[in-house]
């Protein structure tokens, strides 16, 4: 469980990035933090594993205040994947990259081997086991960064822009993996601009603007509120755009799922045919 209470944070250059933010994330929740560039999203989630400590207010992870423990201790339970994989990767091979944290956490050799195989397979990286991460494409490097964190199976996962550079197939895999984590009561927090990905997952959505939380609710409600989204420099997902345009037909506006969209349209067609 993550509890942030009245968190304020200023960078050394005196820019106040967070202006009294409070948020509670329960075990097993899947939360997407969205909002325009510079809204404070990345700054906020860096508090969840103690990389940043609040200037004022408190952040508790599983009841422990982040100022009273170390990042190294927190890291075992809270895995963090950065927006830019080049801020994270440093090993000579993909395999070494994934095993680094596992070795540090003292896993046994055999377990390490199994976890590496599992993570490589999950992220379609098996063929790059012995390759340098720096020879891989941008999208592949992002997946190596993800694999290296998923491998130690943290209770909470923080993913900063996990879908950047990923094709549709990889995004679908990521979505399924997150769903699987939820069934294990694990917590996933993503920071993202990818409205289509969020529309497909329908998580709890927290909208931030200028260092504050401006909305917090079900994805389907927030992603179909044009005024709220515009305020945060986000566009409606495509299906929501379509249903806004179709409102003269008396269709509901709060639709983000393509299958639901299909059913509504077919049903409307059927009922007109009967008239």
């Amino acid at each position: 469980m993550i509890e942030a209470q009245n968190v304020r944070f200023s960078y050394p250059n005196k820019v106040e990035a967070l202006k009294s933010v409070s948020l509670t994330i329960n075990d097993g929740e899947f939360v997407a933090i969205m909002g325009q560039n510079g809204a404070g999203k990345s700054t906020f989630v860096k508090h969840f594993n103690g990389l940043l400590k609040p200037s004022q207010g408190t952040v508790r992870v599983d009841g422990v205040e982040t100022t009273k423990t170390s990042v190294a201790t927190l890291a075992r339970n809270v895995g963090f994947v950065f927006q830019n994989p080049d801020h994270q990767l440093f090993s000579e091979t993909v395999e070494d990259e994934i095993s680094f944290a596992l070795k540090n956490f003292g896993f046994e050799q055999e377990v390490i081997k199994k976890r590496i195989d599992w993570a490589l397979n999950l992220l379609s990286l098996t063929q790059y086991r012995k390759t340098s991460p720096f020879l891989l494409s941008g999208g592949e490097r992002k997946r190596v960064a993800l694999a290296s964190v998923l491998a130690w199976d943290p209770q909470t996962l923080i993913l900063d822009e996990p879908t950047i550079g990923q094709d549709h197939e990889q995004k679908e895999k990521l979505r399924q993996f997150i769903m699987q984590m939820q069934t294990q009561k694990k917590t996933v927090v993503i920071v993202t601009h990818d409205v289509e990905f969020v529309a497909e997952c329908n998580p709890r959505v927290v909208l931030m603007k200028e260092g504050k939380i401006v909305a917090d609710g079900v994805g389907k409600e927030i992603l179909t509120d044009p005024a709220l989204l515009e305020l945060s420099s986000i566009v409606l997902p495509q299906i929501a755009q379509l249903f806004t345009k179709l409102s003269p037909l008396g269709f509901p506006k709060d639709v983000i799922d393509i299958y639901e969209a299909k059913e509504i349209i077919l049903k409307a067609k059927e009922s007109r045919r009967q008239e």
Partner: protein
Amino acid sequence: MAIIEIKNLTYTYPGATKPSINDVSLKVDKGEFVLITGPSGCGKTSLCRCFNGLVPHFYQGELKGEVTVAGIDTLKHHTYEMAKHVGLVFQNPENQLFALSIEKDVAFGLENNGVNREVMRKKVDWALHQTGIYDLRERSPHEISGGQQQRVAIAAVLAMEPEIIVLDEPTSFLDPLSAAKIFEVIYKLNKESGITVILVEHRLDLTAKYTNHLIVMDEGKICFEGDPRQILSTEETRLMGVGIPKATLLFQMLKKEGFDLSGKTPLSSDELADELLEAFKQ
């Protein structure tokens, strides 16, 4: 007239076991807006690096075939000679920014080309305004967010007004509204000034509407090329992990269920909405 012509290009990075580009031939006409997509690792970025000679001059490796850009053989001319003709916006803006202020970064290319001060001032200000970072101009490019860095990288290329702009996922760190605005700026430059645009993108929902020349790559090869409406209607593109716009997908799903809108395949929600409103009118 072809401004880019690639013939039987095969390229392997030093130390790599298989080629990243495998027998690619391609023609781009002056003034075209070309969209390149395909699964990650399929060779999109490597192909972009050929357009200004970074491949092979900087990356080395083994190259076979011919690459002619703006009438220049890129294998015989160095990247700095290509820079006047081709502007490349990298996937990762940090690899491209280096100056002490944003303004200086944007002015760097013009300075090297010996552009006079007044003209330079105008061009830099114009590029800063187009990308919405004029107010940040005195900040360091290293203390701003990833999304803002991408705008600086785009501004630096726009300021040069090259004949060809190559953009490799240029807005991946930007929020959707800012990304849409940047695409509009690029589209406007393409339409009004005739600048040839090569854009690499996964998010076809945002970009397919700008192009009539779509290229889908897989494993170093071009596997589909042509009209996006036609390509995105084929089943195979979906299997390859191409992110087909939801409107296009829904159109196909409705068709399968017997609701054939019989209009052209839509690429955006607006186009599909128009077709549906029309169909329900009857």
